[in-house]
């Protein structure tokens, strides 16, 4: 039983990261109807920036906040420069754009910071949390930061004018424009926020998976799985999906004998395909109606 509780808690901790990634993916999907395949690489690059700042002597939380701001700006710049011109292009062109971005960021991170694996500090320490053997302080910190982030986002989207405008722009762009919302900038804002949320996920998971240019690939796939499970059209679904996927991953790794660390990605694949086949709209998404 203790093993079970332990694994569930560990699952919730990694699930928090998947929830962040899924949320970032869903925010961009809501804004432009495309999946950002470079989301993981953007998060990885942000994490490297924060690491570099710490190497230069900036304290952890200072680097954390600065990285958030830089990632936010970076997300907006990427949208304005690269993806705004592609808004009306066919899906293929957009997929190609994301793939290109993936290659560029991955390659540049390797060029600047090398492909060797680096340690990444945690501000929480790794001792047992509150004297309990079930969960480490870093895992508790991951959950804590994510929950704070989610509350903040909820308040932002529910109670601020700009949050309302963003929701309107995502739900019905045409009508939103008619009531005077600048939908184009709302999309850019969505990109900025997605980049910032992704950078939080990157900085929190880096002490666990270690810092290197390919660190986010597995996390991104699980983030996709979470987003698909929750429904790509639902931010709430993405978060719930993230936690579910995290717990599922840990339990499968513990209790199904063949599945160890070496099968993590195939499990995510199986999960994605199962959800897409059984319930393509996900748990909370709305089904898409098609017509000629």
């Amino acid at each position, binding site marked *: 039983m203790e093993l079970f509780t332990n694994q569930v808690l560990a699952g919730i901790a990694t699930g928090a990261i998947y929830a962040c990634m899924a949320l970032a993916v869903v925010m961009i999907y809501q804004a432009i109807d495309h999946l950002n395949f470079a989301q993981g690489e953007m998060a990885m690059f942000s994490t490297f920036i924060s690491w570099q700042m710490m190497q230069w002597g900036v304290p952890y939380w200072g680097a954390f906040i600065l990285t958030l701001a830089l990632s936010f700006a970076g997300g907006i710049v990427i949208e304005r420069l690269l993806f705004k011109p592609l808004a*009306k292009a066919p899906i293929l062109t957009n997929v*190609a754009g994301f*793939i290109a971005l993936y290659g560029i960021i991955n390659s540049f991170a*390797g060029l600047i910071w090398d492909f060797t694996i680096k340690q990444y500090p945690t501000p929480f320490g790794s001792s047992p949390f509150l004297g309990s053997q079930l969960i480490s302080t870093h895992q508790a910190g991951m959950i804590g930061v994510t929950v704070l982030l989610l509350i903040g986002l909820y308040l932002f989207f529910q109670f601020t004018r700009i949050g309302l405008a963003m929701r309107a722009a995502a739900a019905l762009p045409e009508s939103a424009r008619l009531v005077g919302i600048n939908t184009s900038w709302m999309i850019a804002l969505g990109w900025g926020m997605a980049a910032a949320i992704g950078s939080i996920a990157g900085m929190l998971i880096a002490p666990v998976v270690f810092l290197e240019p390919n660190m986010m690939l597995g996390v991104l796939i699980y983030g996709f799985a979470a987003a698909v499970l929750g429904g790509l059209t639902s931010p709430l679904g993405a978060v719930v999906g993230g936690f579910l996927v995290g717990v599922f991953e840990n339990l499968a790794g513990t209790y199904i004998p063949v599945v160890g660390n070496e099968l993590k990605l195939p499990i995510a694949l199986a999960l994605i395909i199962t959800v897409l086949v059984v319930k393509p709209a996900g748990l909370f998404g709305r089904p898409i109606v*098609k017509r000629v």
Partner: protein
Amino acid sequence: MSAVQEAAAEAPAIEAVPKRAMTLGIGTSLAILALLLLVPLFVKNFIIFQLTMLLIYALAVLALNILTGGSGQFSLGQSAFYAVGAYTSAILMEHANMNYALTLPIAGLICFAFGFAFGQPALRLSGVYLALATFALATAMPQLLKLGFFEHWTGGVQGLVVTKPDAPFGLPMSQDMWLYYFTLAITIGIYIASVNLLRSRSGRAFMAIRDNEIAASAMGVDVALYKTLAFGVSAGITGVAGGLGAIAVQFVAPDGYTILLSIALFLGMVVGGVGWLPGSIVGSAFIIFVPNIAEGISKGLSGAVFGVLLFLVIFLVPHGARQVAMIAQQLIGKLRN
């Protein structure tokens, strides 16, 4: 109501390519064929090897082109099919001592079945969802190949070494040159078959689905069958390319077939022009020679160069090599007058 509106306003998967624009005229085809036949006689073995890889990747890009340009479906998972083909050939050659030429149809068939099976869930997916599912397939494949359970056959992380075949009938040819002509023969065969496929009833069904799925089904096209069929054919051709690749490189290992290979093939298709079959060889040349140049400048640079060039292609020549070829044709036409 809002959902319907959104779906109607959705961008098309890819821009429609008319059937005639998919191939080259006979004269140009023969000129290229003559070039491909003669060049290896005058160059070194290493360059012949690179030309062989050029043909092999051209096959893989062609396969993706049939899927995307023909039927309008995406795949970022071609590396998985390529890997299955490569491993099938390698295992049959090394464990069952089978002749290399016989392993290729088997690799093709197995990949066709795999692609057909994977196409089943893909039926319910379109656009970004399909890209996502295949993206996950490509990232998962190296881990599946490393699995301890299959290690006896696959050699696990170490991979398998494949012996390179000699030229048969005592032909006075180096191994590389023989393999080049062998690959060329297969490539030409598959190219002709693909052109004919796209001109056939099935090809028209693919294109009808690509241009408007619902309209196609209303016209009596069995959408489910043709979508999976396109997936299967594409995977089968990729599998043959993978088998040839294993023989040419003489080695298979899980880390040779990562998502980067899928990205490269996708890039090759976009550069060559989506839906333009002869563009496959242009795209393939691009993905073979550009990394060589980029890695020569700095290690790890090829991803960035790929990415930047891909953006340039998207923004400047969205139809890839086809567009360049058409512009060239017009210029020549003007000069003549």
